[in-house]
């Protein structure tokens, strides 16, 4: 029995992530959990929606990440007048040497490995929808022609929750395409001290790329493949399915009748009172993939209950559509998910 290759793969994964975090820590003060969640989503192949007040380092985190990965990076500042073609690219008439003119597709900023969609809720839904196909299918279609995006493709979108006037909240379909939604909290007292100290001098943080640029995409894709090699026991899959079902209120529409397994799940009253629509199956995929990354980071080749719980809130909180009562009572989706996790622990027997 030779375990060395497998064990080495896992060790490499852990080491890579540690190095990335260490490099990011040079530029980003605090936010370790946020960085870890972003990395989990990145290696799971998902996209991250970051919600936070202005000036808390959202853009800095994304830029630093691209630098550390040594991948191509683009930033799009979403505004009301931003058009889809401004994101995806457009066909332009180009003069050739022979004097001929022809349409040539000019790639938009979406053609990069790491894309920062800053304040995505400030653009119109039409523009926002331009990201849909790219995020889900990793391809764009312009004038009937489909263009593949080079892997890895990673979108980091930011939301400003304060200035809601003149904004367009993201539609549920687009929210569902984000792997995680993480919240950027205010830094702590000491973190603020460090931030103002390190950013007001001439010193610029020297970030060392973890990968060589030529091999970066390959390395990242290899690590993403390794994530999917993590094994899962059937009862863990049952647990994830139960969690997803538990987010769906009892009286919700579009429930399949006669789902006997669903009736045996623990149902929290919070869900029925405050949730209009529960998570989609994509939430389950997110839970499992995120749990796999967590397992690898823990040096295991299998998923445990704790791994699933670890990623439950960032994976599900933007997938719950709360009703008016929840908004009126200022109920946070994270609270509902916490309660679901508590009630679902009975399933672990």
């Amino acid at each position, binding site marked *: *029995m*030779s*375990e060395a*290759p*497998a*064990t080495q*793969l*896992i060790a490499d994964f852990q080491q890579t992530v540690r190095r990335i975090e260490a490099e990011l820590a040079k530029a980003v003060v605090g936010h370790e959990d946020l960085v870890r969640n972003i990395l989990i989503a990145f290696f799971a192949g998902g996209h991250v929606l970051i919600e936070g007040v202005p000036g808390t380092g959202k853009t800095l985190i994304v830029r630093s990440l691209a630098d550390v990965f040594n991948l191509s990076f683009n930033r799009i500042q979403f505004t009301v007048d931003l058009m889809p073609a401004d994101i995806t690219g457009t066909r332009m008439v180009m003069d050739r040497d022979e004097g001929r003119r022809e349409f040539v597709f000019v790639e938009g900023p979406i053609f990069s490995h790491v894309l920062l969609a800053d304040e995505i809720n400030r653009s119109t839904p039409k523009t926002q929808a331009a990201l849909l196909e790219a995020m889900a299918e990793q391809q764009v279609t312009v004038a009937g022609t489909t263009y593949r995006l080079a892997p890895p493709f990673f979108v980091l979108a930011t939301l400003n929750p304060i200035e809601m006037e003149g904004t367009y909240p993201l539609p549920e379909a687009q929210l569902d395409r984000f792997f995680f939604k993480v919240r950027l909290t205010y830094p702590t007292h000491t973190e603020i001290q460090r931030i103002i100290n390190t950013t007001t001098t001439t010193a610029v943080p020297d970030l060392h790329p973890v990968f060589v640029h030529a091999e970066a995409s390959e390395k990242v894709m290899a690590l993403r493949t*390794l994530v999917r*090699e*993590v*094994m*899962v*026991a*059937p*009862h*863990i899959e049952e647990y994830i399915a139960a969690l997803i079902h538990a987010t769906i209120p009892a009286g919700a529409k579009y429930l399949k009748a006669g789902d006997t397994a669903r009736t045996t799940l623990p149902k929290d009253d919070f869900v029925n009172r405050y949730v209009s629509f529960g998570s989609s199956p994509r939430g389950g995929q997110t839970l499992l993939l995120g749990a796999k990354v967590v397992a690898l980071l*823990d040096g*295991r*080749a*299998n*998923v*445990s*209950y*704790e791994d699933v719980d670890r990623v439950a809130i960032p994976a599900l909180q933007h997938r719950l559509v709360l009703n008016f009562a929840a908004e009126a009572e200022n109920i946070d989706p994270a609270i509902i998910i916490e309660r679901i996790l508590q009630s679902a622990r009975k399933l*672990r*027997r």
Partner: protein
Amino acid sequence: MTENQNKTVGIPGTEERLALADVEERLRQVRGRWNFHTVQHHLYRLGAVLALGTALLIVCTFVLSPMLFTLLSWPVLLLLAFCFLFFVRRGVEDWADLNTIARRVDARAGLKERLATLVAQLTGGAIGKPPPSSLWPHLLAENTRLLNDWEVKRVSPSRIPWSAVPFLLALLLTFFIASIPMLSERSTQEPFSLANLETVLGDLPNRAGELLDRKLSLLPDTPKQWGGGTLFDTPRDQEKKAQDALEAGNAENQRNPESPDKLDAQSLASLPQALQEKIRQALQGLPDKAPKPPTPEGQSAEQDPRLALQAREEQKTPSASMDGQGDRQGEQSPSTSRNRDDKKKDGSASGKNPGAAMSAPSQGSGLQQLEHAQLERKNAKGTFQPDSPQVPGSGGESGEGGPGAGSGTEPRLYGEEKITGKGGQTFQLALETTHKKSQEGELDPEEKDTGGIIEKSTKGLSREQSLDDAIRKSQVPAEYEDIVKRLFVRGESR
């Protein structure tokens, strides 16, 4: 790892296969213990329910009327049957497979689903197929390394489940409830009345001591104790049976008259089988002693527990019992002394002379009860002389009753009975010396010290007296005397 080993999982003879076998063997051991625990758990729960149901039925038997009992017993029985099926079904459902056991082991040993994932791959048919993941060797290596973290004893449940405790309690309760009718006074028709329960509970230590003594004694026929009838025989029925048995015995004796000499040698065992059985039924709940061969003359009385012989010994050395030096007899027959002690708690002399209290009761109490009966009869007839030196009432000095008991049966008592011709209604239970006195008027000085046990003659006795005499010679203990006395009183009142 060779190229061949990379292709499939669990090739026989490989290190991987050995590691898998180790894990599987350990897991099967855990599964065996876990399933055994599960089966025990459900059996104990089922047993507890059945025991409680049985106890309920026993109580209902005595408390409810036949109609109500019938109405209640069927639902109870149906409920018990339902419980039986329920627990059997639960037992089948809880029978754990390897996957379930692996999950439990993971939870108990904190393996973070490593074992469950490995077992899930194996039970999913990974053996003989390509590895399910490139990380498979790592998973297997981790499980092999963590084998020491989940030893069988550590992750298995306890050998005896907690449900054994309620089961044992239920069983004890059931036995206690079942024994209440047997521990009750025979005349009690409602064994589960509060008064009777108090009596039974109060008498329980004595009963336990009695049972212990009986176990320690050499008495035969222990299976016959308390067990002649069914639980459903009312005491009145049992007394009626005893009465019938005595009458049947009388009738048989009338049909086959025997010489008095032969009757003298008759014991309970020599009685007809039917009579013996009926007497035993009538005397159920009391210790039954098999007849012993007559003690040869000159044999030490210490080896014979019979009352008559002890009385003789006491008569020989009255000072020994009077001054409390006769403890050895009490020691030799602990059961009888204990019984007598219990019945003489009100005896004033027992406190004054503990030595006598230990020795004398073995002969005093039975006779004392008989004397009480005779006293009652005499009072009824108006012939009792309270100034007699052998006044039974003075048996209140029961602790000193050894010598008094020996001469407590005044010869004229039976003489008068003979004269009045009412022997058929009297019960003569006395020592042979008393009987001889009744026959001859005076004791033969030569026979005073013989210590004889066997009645030499019953001449002049009526047939009923002869029967009673036969019963007496069958080493009837005090409880027998009590029962016979009651029967006699009933017959007399009739």
